[in-house]
């Protein structure tokens, strides 16, 4: 009788642990660039909002690799679980913006890159003056400089990445 009681107690504890562990967290953070909040748990549904990295989201439900979430402004929608983290992610300013406070936030996010520096680098076409000087001092043959120029000039846009993932049925586009 005593054994049955102990077994029942362990069983109860096990079941409650499983239930507790399978509960979605109450808050999640956007951990990816190009994160979109959708009206439904399908990538093909309409986009409610584009969310910057670090945005905190209140979780309402979890279903089939998608979280139903609520934004601080009250809007609700669904976000693919690959785009979020259960641990806090520091806000970043993104690649195209830069300001003094932005730089400070960027640094606090763990990156020592100032947003304005990143920005200016993006406007440079081809090798930087420093690398050009290095090549000159080192007598690096022109063919290598030209090839590196081509590598640095090659760009992939977020919409191309989106299209590529969609075509391959990857991540939120998985059926």
């Amino acid at each position, binding site marked *: 009788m005593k054994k049955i009681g102990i077994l029942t107690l362990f069983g109860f504890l096990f079941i409650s642990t499983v239930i507790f562990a399978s509960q979605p967290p109450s808050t999640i953070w956007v951990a990816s660039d190009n994160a979109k909040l959708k009206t439904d748990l399908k990538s093909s549904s309409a986009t409610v909002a584009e969310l910057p990295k670090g945005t905190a989201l209140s979780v309402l439900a979890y279903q089939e690799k998608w979280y139903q979430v609520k934004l601080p402004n009250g809007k609700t929608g669904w976000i693919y679980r*690959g785009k979020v983290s259960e641990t806090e992610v520091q806000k970043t300013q993104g690649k195209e913006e830069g300001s003094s406070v932005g730089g400070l936030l960027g640094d606090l996010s763990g990156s*020592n890159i100032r947003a304005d520096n*990143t920005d200016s680098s993006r406007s440079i076409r081809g090798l*930087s003056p420093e690398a050009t*000087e*290095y090549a000159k001092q080192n007598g690096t043959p022109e063919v290598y400089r030209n090839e590196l120029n081509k590598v640095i000039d090659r760009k992939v846009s977020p919409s191309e990445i989106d299209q590529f993932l969609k075509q391959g049925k990857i991540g939120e586009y998985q059926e």
Partner: protein
Amino acid sequence: MIKKQFTHPDDRINRTRRNLLKLAGPFTLFMACPAYALDLFKIIDPDEKSKDIQRAKTIFEGVGSIATSATDLDYKSEFAIGESLALEGFQRFGLPSKNQLVQKYVNTIGNAVVQNSMRSDIPYYFVVVENNIYNAFACPGGIIFVSSALLKSMNNEAELACVLAHEVAHVGHKHALQAIKRAKFFEGVGKISTANMKGEEGKKFQNMIGDLQTVLFDHGLDQDMEFEADLSGMSFAYQTGYNPEGFIRVLDMLKQKEATAVKEGSWFSTHPPLTDRIQKCNEGMAKYPDAASLAVVSNRFVEYRKLL
């Protein structure tokens, strides 16, 4: 009424006291991290009106340059190191594959993984070089090389995504810079400019690039850095939607080829023993119970592989 044209001595003293109090914050912050202190100056004196504050800022900037280390370099400096190393990489490992479709394909997968990485605020460039040894490496600042031999030996997109993600993780963790942080070049240098490329400084810069080549092309990074990049890379691939087990499949494939493959300058000579990596990555898979349901994408990969 005539406006007061002179400053009372008491006003000057009070102003100096106020400025000293204002400087206490940046000074404390400077001791922890010089970069933050300079941002704080902009907040305290946004219009740059106070001569005292601006004078102190100049001093802080100078000292900050000296106090910084290799891993605290600004992005442009880090990228200049990466470009210089990439020039050496082409000379050592060969020129990029001429097939632009393959280059675009690899770049797209790489950048898809970057979106889910720890350091997605910088641009990344992926390049396939024609070479018959199994190799991939990352230059500081985000230029990532993968050899045609390694690419040809893979079977699907998930495997490639995992290898690229491993290299993206090295850039994110700044592993290469950590490995050469004691190089003489960094003594007193906070930012790299063309002036650093000439004379004595230029020689030190070239030596530092030489050290980097030794680390990345010959001896390899610290084992713990490799294990860290393995697990981070698997996480980035998983977040993107690729099966992270693809990375273990690549390591398995390399294990099979280990006995007969060229070792010098390859993943065999620059990375920890494959058995250890496979074991740690298998342990890491516990975090991904639904991995088998994620994308692998074989058909598209095989079509592009044929172009090499």
